């Protein structure tokens, strides 16, 4: 029988992948994609939790998270485009405006 632990471990793994992507990829687009991975890990937890607990709130949450993810992707990518136009690169090694 597949228990919720299986799903949680899978979600943790996805989240780990997302985190590592955010931390170690230099391409902003990749960073955003890694964030999508992390969001999906959370979604997985919500859906499996919804099944475990026998209510639909988790699924509704997934719905909202997808909405938020869409908005996040839209605005985030717009910022990537704006950055690219201004600095000609999306490599975070070269984007260090906050440097002290």
């Amino acid at each position: 029988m597949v228990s919720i632990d299986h799903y949680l471990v899978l979600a943790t793994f996805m989240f780990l992948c997302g985190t590592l992507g955010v931390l170690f990829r230099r391409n902003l687009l990749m960073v955003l994609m890694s964030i999508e991975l992390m969001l999906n890990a959370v979604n997985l937890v919500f859906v499996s939790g919804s099944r475990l607990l026998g209510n639909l709130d988790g699924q509704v949450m997934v719905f909202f998270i997808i909405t938020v993810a869409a908005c996040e992707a839209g605005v985030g990518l717009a910022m990537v485009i704006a950055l690219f136009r201004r600095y000609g690169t999306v490599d975070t090694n070269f984007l260090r405006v906050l440097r002290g």
Partner: protein
Amino acid sequence: MNPYLPVLIVLLLGVGLGGILSGLAHFVGPRKPNRIKEEPFECGVPAVGEKDKMSVKFYLTAILFILFDIETVFLYLWAMTFRDLGWFGIAEIIVFLVVLFGGYIYVVKRGALEWD
């Protein structure tokens, strides 16, 4: 039987069919590559210039698509339940649509949909 089993079967068959079609020529057809043949096709004229940067309009279209896509999904959900929600549901969805329509009007006014 789980209703998703056929989905898996079709997925496998479809990907298999696509894979066969995609790989068929590799095995069946002749292979005599040469430089000229492999040039990207530009009506016989030598390729000039780098790949152009595409207009940001495509991006704007895609972002609008996402946002309205979500709206459509909400609408599907509502269309399923509208009989039981009654006038309350209609009011709810009208508020939702009015807000999004405001965004739509902004988009049109801002000229994000002008292709010129």
